[in-house]
């Protein structure tokens, strides 16, 4: 059992070591050392997980509590990749803003929580893992010690606490019905009956996790927090922690509540419509790039919700779930990359308004070029990863037929709208701004950007293996 948990042990060990380290060395040196230690830990864990995923076997580590399957391996891959990229990028940002080594500790704790959450098949364990990850991100969101940083942290925290309460309430209702917090036990106890209490539980769970995925109308905190938090942290929030809530939703609803699929899929459909539309329309009128990307995150969450809604159809469920998984992965990389690019631009540009990015194409060519790749991918332009995953979602909804097609069409209309605000940034970067001087680009951030861009392009051009991985990972969710 310990062998399978080696990545987690590595991470938590490194995190605890960092806690100790902070007390015994000077601030800047310590931050640097912590950065390298956490990068090594994360890289090691990533290596271990990718070795595992080659084996592709399902292992029950603690019966009814922790299970390692293809689904959890997929998410581990996602979380660790993003953490790795964010830590890599942070090596520059932490130095620039003189943030302490605690920054990395928090990142590692969050990653650890997310890894546990990916394996949890018990509501209580899932909840605790999610909370561990979330509470650490509260501290991360407030890391900028100024007015905006405080605003980001407080808003995130208060709404987060409220949502945790909602989730907990939902869990307690399920426990009340089934007498157990194990997902399979709940599925057995519930069968296909859908009593009012179960519906209530569904509503609270969706509302609670809806906060973390920033679904409309639970999304209010997101723009403020994404704007106020350091850009590297925002990359992490938008890229990774949001996906943890999707993970929890999928695990809970598909494994524990398959009998109520009609009602929860309907709720997801409503949320999907609201989330896509509001997210995109509001993003259209944003002038601050981080807020724009935040609303774009909201909209992209809506696309994933479309795939969730399709789960109630009679069509190929692994296609829908696989499409959702792939879009999460792709979105993590491209949105994470976009925020990291904003962080990189921050080394030369003070403002965060889109107009401040004028001439970035000549000023910081690599940053601007990779940012353009991420934006085009977000817009769903072919030969970028975003197109592949969005197209899979569309395929799932179209092949499901009936009213699901309407969701697909809405998705298409929305991505058409979204192209406008993504393209606007590219235009500003390349076609505006007068004479500018070349600025030095932060090395580590650029490395992270290039790696992310390569992933986006690779998945966009050779999508077969990624689709295969996502589908087989999704399939493991449907086999008891």
């Amino acid at each position, binding site marked *: 059992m310990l062998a399978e948990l080696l990545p987690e042990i590595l991470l938590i060990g490194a995190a605890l070591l960092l806690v100790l380290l902070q007390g015994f060395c000077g601030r800047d040196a310590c931050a640097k050392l912590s950065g390298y230690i956490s990068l090594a830990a994360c890289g090691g864990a990533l290596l271990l997980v990718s070795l595992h995923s080659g084996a592709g076997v399902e292992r029950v580590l603690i019966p009814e509590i922790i299970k390692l399957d293809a689904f959890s391996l997929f998410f581990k891959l996602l979380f660790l990749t993003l953490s790795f990229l964010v830590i890599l990028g942070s090596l520059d940002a932490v130095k620039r803003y003189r943030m302490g080594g605690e920054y990395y500790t928090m990142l590692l704790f969050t990653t650890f929580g997310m890894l546990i959450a990916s394996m949890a098949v018990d509501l209580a364990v899932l909840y605790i893992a999610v909370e561990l990850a979330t509470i650490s991100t509260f501290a991360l969101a407030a890391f900028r010690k100024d007015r905006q940083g405080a*605003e980001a942290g407080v808003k995130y925290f208060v*709404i987060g606490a409220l949502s945790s309460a909602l989730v907990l309430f939902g869990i307690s209702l399920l426990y009340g019905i089934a007498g157990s917090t194990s997902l399979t036990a709940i599925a057995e106890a519930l069968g296909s009956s859908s009593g009012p209490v179960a519906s209530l539980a569904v509503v609270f769970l969706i509302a609670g996790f809806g906060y973390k995925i920033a679904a409309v109308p639970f999304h209010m905190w997101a723009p403020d927090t994404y704007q106020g938090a350091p850009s590297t942290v925002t990359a992490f929030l938008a890229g990774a922690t949001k996906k943890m809530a999707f993970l929890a939703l999928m695990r809970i609803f598909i494994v524990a509540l398959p009998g109520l699929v009609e009602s929860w899929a309907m709720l997801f459909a409503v949320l999907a419509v609201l989330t896509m539309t509001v997210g995109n329309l509001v993003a259209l009128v944003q002038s601050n790039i981080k807020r724009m990307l935040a609303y774009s995150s909201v909209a992209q969450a809506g696309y994933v919700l479309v795939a969730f809604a399709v789960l109630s159809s009679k069509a190929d469920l692994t296609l829908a779930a696989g499409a959702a998984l792939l879009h999460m992965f792709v979105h993590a990389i491209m949105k994470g990359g976009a925020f990291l690019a904003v962080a990189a631009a921050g080394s030369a540009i003070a403002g965060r308004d889109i107009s401040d990015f004028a001439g970035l194409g000549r000023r910081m060519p690599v940053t601007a070029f990779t940012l353009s790749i991420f934006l085009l991918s977000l817009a769903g332009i*072919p030969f970028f990863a975003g197109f592949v995953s969005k197209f899979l979602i569309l395929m799932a909804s179209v092949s499901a037929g009936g009213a699901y097609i309407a969701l697909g*069409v809405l998705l*298409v209309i929305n991505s*058409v709208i979204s192209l406008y605000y993504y393209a606007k940034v590219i*235009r500003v970067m390349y076609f505006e701004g007068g004479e500018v001087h070349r600025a030095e680009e932060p090395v580590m951030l650029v490395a992270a950007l290039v790696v992310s861009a390569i992933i986006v392009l690779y998945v966009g051009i050779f999508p077969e293996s990624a689709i295969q991985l996502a589908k087989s990972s999704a399939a493991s969710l449907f086999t008891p």
Partner: protein
Amino acid sequence: MVAEYSWLIPVFPLASFVLILLFGGRLREGGGHLAVAAVGASMLLSLAVISHVVRFGSYESRGISWFGSEAFRFGVLVDPLSAVMLFVVSFVGFLIVVYSLGYMHGDPGVQRYYAEISLFIASMLSLVIANNLVFMFISWELVGLCSYLLIGYWYRKPSAASAAKKAFLVTRVGDILFLAGILVVYREFGTLNLSEVFELAPGVATATLTLASLLLFGGAVGKSAQFPLHVWLPDAMEGPTTVSALIHAATMVKAGVYLVARMYPLFTPESLHVVAWIGGITAFIAASMAVVMTDLKRVIAYSTVSHLGFMTLALGVGGYAAGIFHLLNHSFFKALLFLSAGAVLHAVHSQDIRDMSGLWRRMPVTGTAFFIGAWSLSGLPPWSGFWSKDEIMAAVHSYSTPLFWLTAVTALLSAVYIWRLFFIVFTGRESEQAKHAHEAPLVMRIPLIILSLGALFSGFVVFAGFGEFVQGALEHAPEAAEHASGSVMLLSILLAATGTGLAALTYYRPVISAARVRRALAPVHTLLVNRYYLDHLYYFFATRVVADSARALRGVDEFIVDGTVNGTGRAAVCSGRKLRLLQSGVVQDYASWVLAGAFLLLVIAGLIGGGV
């Protein structure tokens, strides 16, 4: 076999796009010569492929599949239809890029210009040779993007920026319909490969075909600026004139017509009826507006819309070959008109025809070129415009009488507006601006001369079996419309001559006073000058309905919720004390939204779950 290499056709300009983007800054003319070489290479290869098609018939490659999905098997299809289009795009494209060397000389952003124009030609070529609807759609979107970028090429000019936005948004309406059409096709046919779709088409229910074909036609309406989405094209004239000539006259706007022709097997008599009427209406209203416009490029732009309407009309009434024939001819004479107009603007530095007069003496080559273009366009024999217009009129004549008279009036108007333009600009007393005009440089004159030859003689291909050749693209070709019957031909000549005469009597030897006519028909004139008020209607819709709803949503999100913070927050700049109070209030609002959302979900769950 040369056709096997036809996939290389769009690769050359694509490579030039990448190279210019990366290194154009270090090359002379921003990489213009590179673009010329690449497009030239494409043209030579295209000509070779076309001659292959002429001799041996259509070529289709199986293509390569993308992520293992048969829907994404991208290959090449070159049949007579795409051969014609391929010729137009590569040949006219090449001439225009050459012309650009002179026209864009000294512009600070030429690198961007050549990069974008290379990308445009690459995507336009791939649109033409695509054998798969998705591949077509991707190229379709790319040409739209390039059009947006190039219209807004002088982005510092607010009118250019807003014209670019307008073009982008309006064509988007069509694009969505196109995409919806593709989805319908995919659901019904289970494939997006063109040949497979055509094979299966006869077995599909008529209603479905009508729906699919009308949705696809919706895409064409947006791209080819058909009524009611024609409003973007005249504004698109804010871009450089070369762009207008290439994208908004010769190639991209033809993509819609091409799409209809390409998907012709899917069109049922019902949907063709719609196509015909839309085409006829477009042709008429655009021609009527062209008569009153005073901006040189806009007149030509409305004329383009009108002629696109002719082509659509021709396809709609079953004159398949006639439509394609007109497409070919129009590309020559319209590109010619635009390029000579460009030479005029280059010399006069104004777009208003009231500033121009008597330019003939200073610019004889340009004048001659314009004269040839106008002659061809007006439909006077014996040049190209005459032959194709004649075939269209013949096809319409056997289809519907009201539509025929509408076409006849339009033909008359065509002659009026183009000769009006010619007489005002080139004849009469030399205006102040004209005194400083000078002939265009050689690199601009040569393309003009070649295009003139095309505009003069491209009509004669009809005697070389053009019609039969193009009909070969269709499995079940509609009966080729009979060649112009004597009476129709006579009427057509008569109309063109009358139009020319009217224009000459008004603007060359002012027997008729334009001002008096204008006064007599004041309400009509106002209506036309205001472009039938359609732009106003759309503007109202766009600003009031769409933008307001976006703003209202932001209002809910930011004004009501955040406004309290930001507004007051700014006033209380650094007062942490106040901010703390405000913030707690705001978060409460957020929390209320969370609870309201939960309640909403509860209500919905109650509605579907039955009793919460």
